[in-house]
């Protein structure tokens, strides 16, 4: 499934909405999540999962081709942890308790 298919499914389910509004709605959801993480905030969507930012410490890396050492600065990376309900659903356990 890609973004445009997701938009199409939701547009089909909501014939009273303009397609362009459904597009804005779907885009807003993903944009809000990205913006939150860019600020260092977490986004917790119970049952689905949680987006957070993890810090990777500075380290001395090595260029695998030349063997040369390089200093890698500390950096922040996006991280997603699957929610319990979705994890259970992926494994065929439909009616389990919400986390």
């Amino acid at each position, binding site marked *: *499934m*890609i*973004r445009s298919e*997701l938009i199409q*499914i*939701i547009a089909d*389910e*909501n014939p009273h*909405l303009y397609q362009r*509004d459904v597009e*804005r*709605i*779907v885009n*807003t*959801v*993903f*944009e*809000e*999540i*990205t913006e*939150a*993480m*860019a*600020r*260092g*905030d*977490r*986004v*917790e*969507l*119970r*049952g*689905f*999962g949680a987006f*957070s*930012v993890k*810090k990777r410490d500075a380290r001395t890396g090595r260029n695998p081709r030349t063997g040369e050492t390089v200093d890698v600065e500390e*950096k*922040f*990376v*996006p991280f*997603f942890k*699957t929610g319990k309900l*979705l*994890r259970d*659903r*992926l*494994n065929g356990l439909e009616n389990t308790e919400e986390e």
Partner: protein
Amino acid sequence: MGEKTLTRMDLSEAVFNEVGLSRNESAQLVESVLEHMSDALVRGEQVKISSFGTFSVREKAARVGRNPKTGEEVPIHPRRVLTFRPSHLMKDRVADGNRKK
């Protein structure tokens, strides 16, 4: 960092501010986005959101695990796990936004 935790409510509020819908309908639409993504993943499909990232389902083989506290061996059954790979755009935005000034 990690100042705040956003929830469905914050996403609904953003949708409410973006489009002229009721708060209730905005909340339902956010839910609908998450549900359709979940359903696709449960069917084993990949969910690829351009400029955001890709969710994929991976099959994990059975293995023998160990309770780290008791040292006891426990069988871990084969299972399906979800992985999220952020897009380059998201990685860059998160790295830039959190970089120490």
